[in-house]
Every structure is written in structure tokens, then in C-alpha cells.
């Protein structure tokens, strides 16, 4: 395993909640804190590491309603639709994905809100703004798995 992979491995789980967490992680890899932090900065500047941060279970943070909404957007309007949707604070993820012959949806948005009504308002607002009316709200009924990726 390369040094970088070892660092990814150290950060893909939880960092210790203590004053100098990186020093501890570095020691576990036989590195100095300086070396570890320098490698971390390198990973960040190359965009490999987005950030070190707290990941919240949004449902427990008060965002009890969420829906993955799949939209069928005419190709010429994908860019403007995507930008409009992305600008909304209650939309956390917005991606263009391929449609399939029996599945015309090519744009996916994750909408979060504190109630179902809030979600509907966001979706209705997008319909009005963009004129795209063909969509499916794929409400989650059961969570089987939700975890973070283990890379190495």
C-alpha cells in the first residue's frame, strides 16, 4: 500500500475526537504529524480529498422528509434545468444520468425538507420555473444500507 492509500485508509473512517487527531493517525502509520498534514494538503489540492468533515444523518438533524426525484428533461434543456435545480438550497445532489428505452428519466435531484409539504413545494416550484412536467418522486420506503465507502 502506498503512503497515500494508507492516509486515505486512516481518514475513511472516523478521526479521533481529541485535540491533535492527525498526530495520532500519523503515529499509527509511523509518520510525523508534519508529513501527514503535508500529504493531506496534497490530496486536497488535487481534489482527491474533498474535505475532512462531519457527516450528518439528515433525518436526525431535522430533515425528516427527502425524495429522490427523477426528471425527464429534453436534451436541449438539460443544462438550464440542472443549473436551476442546483441553485436551490433544498436540493443536495443534482446529476444528469442516462435514460433507458423504457425509463425516460435523465436528471436526478435529491430534495430534502422538514416536511413532505416542503418537498412538494420545491418540486412544484421547479416544474413552474422550468416547464418540465414529466417527473417521478421516488420516495424512500425502507433503508437497507447507508454507509461510507471503504476504499483500501
Amino acid at each position, binding site marked *: 500500500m502506498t503512503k497515500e492509500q494508507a492516509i486515505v485508509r486512516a481518514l475513511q*473512517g*472516523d*478521526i479521533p475526537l481529541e485535540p491533535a487527531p492527525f498526530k495520532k493517525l500519523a503515529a499509527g502509520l509511523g509518520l510525523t504529524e508534519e508529513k501527514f498534514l503535508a500529504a493531506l494538503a496534497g490530496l486536497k489540492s488535487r481534489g482527491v480529498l474533498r474535505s475532512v468533515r*462531519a457527516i*450528518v444523518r439528515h433525518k*436526525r*438533524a431535522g430533515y425528516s422528509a427527502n425524495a429522490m426525484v427523477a426528471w425527464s428533461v429534453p436534451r436541449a434543456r438539460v443544462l438550464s434545468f440542472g443549473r436551476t435545480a442546483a441553485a436551490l438550497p433544498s*436540493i443536495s445532489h443534482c446529476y444528469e444520468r442516462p435514460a433507458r428505452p423504457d425509463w425516460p428519466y435523465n436528471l436526478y435531484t435529491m430534495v430534502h425538507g422538514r416536511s413532505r409539504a416542503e418537498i412538494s413545494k420545491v418540486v412544484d416550484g421547479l416544474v413552474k420555473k422550468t416547464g418540465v412536467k414529466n417527473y417521478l418522486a421516488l420516495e424512500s420506503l425502507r433503508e437497507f*444500507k447507508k454507509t*461510507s465507502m471503504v476504499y483500501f
Partner: protein
Amino acid sequence: MVKRVEKLVLDAAQADIPAVSRPFAALGGKIGVPEAEVLKILKAYKKKGVIRRIGGSFETRKLGFSSTLAGARVKPSRLAAVAKEISKFPGVTHCYERAGEMNLWFTLGVRGTMAGVDKKIAAFRRLPGVEKCYSFPVKKMFKIKTMFPV
């Protein structure tokens, strides 16, 4: 009820924990909260389960992984069993039953090229009860925001 100081800490920690020797002191410095209190609040919310994890968030692709979102239609009587089987695979990080014709959705990441993803999807497609299973890899990313102001 979330106290004002807790909101400050949770929102700041969701945005970025700086990569410095004393990250919690640095984070607290920006919002006027002492290091010890930052740590106390983060520990408490971790324990409560509001915080799922405190660690690195990576750009999967730049680590040499390929990923996709997959939607499947599974016979209702087989749904739980299929979901369990699919969730066993470590590269599956999210797996949900959702309302509608396609009733099972999951994310999948594997080391290497998209061919590895397709192979895995093909294997899932062969599970008994799976009527269809489509892979919808990202064509264009418009937004990924993972900040939930508390």
C-alpha cells in the same frame, strides 16, 4: 432543541475541519468557541447518532474507483432478500426500497474502470426475483452539497 453554540459547531464541522495540527481549536477560533467545547459538542452529537461519521470525504473517481446509481425492479416477495444480498457487497454504500415501478435503488463503487461496475450489475441482475436492473452512471454533475444546517 439545538443550542446556538451547538448549531455553530455542527454547521462549521459539516463544512470543513481544517487539516492543521489542532483542527478543533482552529474550527472553534472561527466561530468563537473553545476547542474543548467543540470536542464536547461533536462527541455528544456523534453519540446521539446525529453525526454519522467525522472523517475524510473523497472524490471516488480520483481514487481510481468507478461508480454508479442503479435502479432495479424486484418481485416484492424477493425484495428484502435481494436487498440484503446486494448490500453485502462492500462497494454498495446506499441501498433503499423506493416507491414506484423500480423499487430498489443502490449506489455501487468498484476499484478500476466502469467495466467492473457493469460486471457487478450484471451479477446482481441474475439474482432470483430481479426483473430488471439498470445502471445510471453520472453523465454530468451539477451539484453535490452535503451540508445540512441544523
